[in-house]
């Protein structure tokens, strides 16, 4: 009788267990989740940058493991294993994202350092140009001194011949007059030679100056005249404000126009093709106007300046590469001929 009572009870319990759970077999999804987790845990980037996400994945994996060891239904174990597996992937992606963001932060610092280096180099470049001009002027000074010494020598020899002619004066009056007239002719010739030499030196100085100035501004000869280009690095990003390097270049140009009052300037602004047309038109207008304002501030007459923005028109390089876009973001200043004329675009 006792056995009879226990047997059906045991059968009921067995049936209940069979109804709610499956046999303790391997679960492939759970194996995948465990494997993914151990790979992520061995990755120092994930453990350091996504510790919270990895902990959450670990908790979910614990739940899946515990359901599996309690022989709960395959559907439940599969579900918990799937969630754990996706959470491991979330931890991995989070670590990737943070690593890339760190790289951007570091790169921003590096870019600032590179910009600083660019400005330093520009200053050194200007200093070198100044030294070259100084050396050139020292050289022409030296050659002037040499010419002067030569003329002193010829003067002395003229004096010697004068003395000789004075000695012969006593012997013949006629030859004395002749000697005097020769001395006068020599003096006149000497004066003429001095004049010519001074003029030549002045002309040489002027052409050296013009050449050195245009070189310093990196002017290029085009069909429309000499063109000085202000690159993108001389402006703040997406702003019309000139940086100190840009102001420096414009100052050189203003000095140039002070010396050549018959020459005028045309200022043209350009951008790359990134952004809307109206934004680009506006930025190129403002950059051109900013250069004009700088020239006016340096004392150049407004009647000598024309300016306009061309937006993304007239690119000088391809807009498909970062290097090309940087070349297209620019302000060009065209120097007129001696009559103040500039050919239209």
């Amino acid at each position, binding site marked *: 009788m006792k056995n009879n*009572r226990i047997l059906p009870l045991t059968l*009921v319990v067995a049936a*209940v267990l069979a*109804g*709610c759970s499956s046999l303790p077999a391997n679960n492939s999804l759970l194996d995948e989740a465990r494997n993914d987790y151990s790979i992520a845990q061995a990755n120092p980037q994930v453990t350091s940058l996504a510790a919270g996400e990895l902990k959450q994945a670990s908790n979910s994996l614990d739940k899946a493991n515990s359901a599996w060891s309690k022989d709960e239904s395959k*559907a*439940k174990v599969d*579900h918990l294993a*799937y*969630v754990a597996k*996706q*959470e491991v*992937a*979330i931890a991995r*992606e*989070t670590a*990737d*994202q*943070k690593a*890339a*963001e760190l*790289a*951007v932060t570091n*790169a*921003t610092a*590096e*870019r600032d350092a*590179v*910009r600083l*280096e*660019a400005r330093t*180099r*520009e200053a050194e*470049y200007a200093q070198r140009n100044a030294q070259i001009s100084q050396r050139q002027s020292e050289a022409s000074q030296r050659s002037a001194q040499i010419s002067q010494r030569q003329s002193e020598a010829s003067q002395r020899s003229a004096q010697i011949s004068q003395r000789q002619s004075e000695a012969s004066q006593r012997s013949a009056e006629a030859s004395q007059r002749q000697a005097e007239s020769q001395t006068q002719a020599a003096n006149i010739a000497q004066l003429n030679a001095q004049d010519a030499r001074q003029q030549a030196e002045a002309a040489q100085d002027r052409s050296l100056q013009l050449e050195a100035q245009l070189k310093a501004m990196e002017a290029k000869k085009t069909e429309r005249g000499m063109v000085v280009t202000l*690159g993108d*690095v001389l402006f703040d990003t997406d702003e019309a404000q000139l940086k100190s390097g840009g102001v420096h270049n414009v100052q050189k140009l203003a000095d140039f126009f002070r010396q050549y009052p018959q020459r005028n300037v045309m200022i043209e602004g350009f951008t790359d093709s990134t952004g809307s047309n109206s934004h680009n038109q506006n930025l190129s207008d403002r950059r051109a106007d900013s250069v004009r304002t700088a020239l006016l501030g340096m004392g150049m007459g407004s009647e000598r300046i024309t300016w306009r923005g061309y937006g993304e028109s007239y690119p000088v390089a391809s807009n498909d590469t*970062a*290097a090309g876009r*940087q070349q297209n973001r620019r302000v060009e200043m065209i120097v007129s001929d001696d009559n103040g004329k500039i050919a239209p675009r």
Partner: protein
Amino acid sequence: MSSHQWYRAAGAIGIAAVVMAGCASVPKPTEQIAVSNSAITNASRAGGAEFAPVEMKSAQDKMARAHQAMAKEDYEDARRLAEEAQADARLAEKKAESAKARKAAVVMGDDIRVLRDEINRKSK
């Protein structure tokens, strides 16, 4: 009915109640459905469809099946599907964000290279 038989009947009813509680009675997962829906919205706002199309599609499919299970009052199934959809959507969002961050890092590297080229060209 003897007291013997009465105990046996009470025991059987007790076991049946425990079994019903363990296997069947599941609350309606309304809250989980709302959480999963908002995870999908966030993921698609972050660009999940572009950067993680597989995860995005899986999340949306599972959400549709979760709604069907709700209609059939199969709440256990509905909750599991909604939880998996949430995990898929969060993964899609993260994938989109990390892809965008990597892209930004590449662009920044390009910019620096251009700047350096420009300096080297000028100092020649």
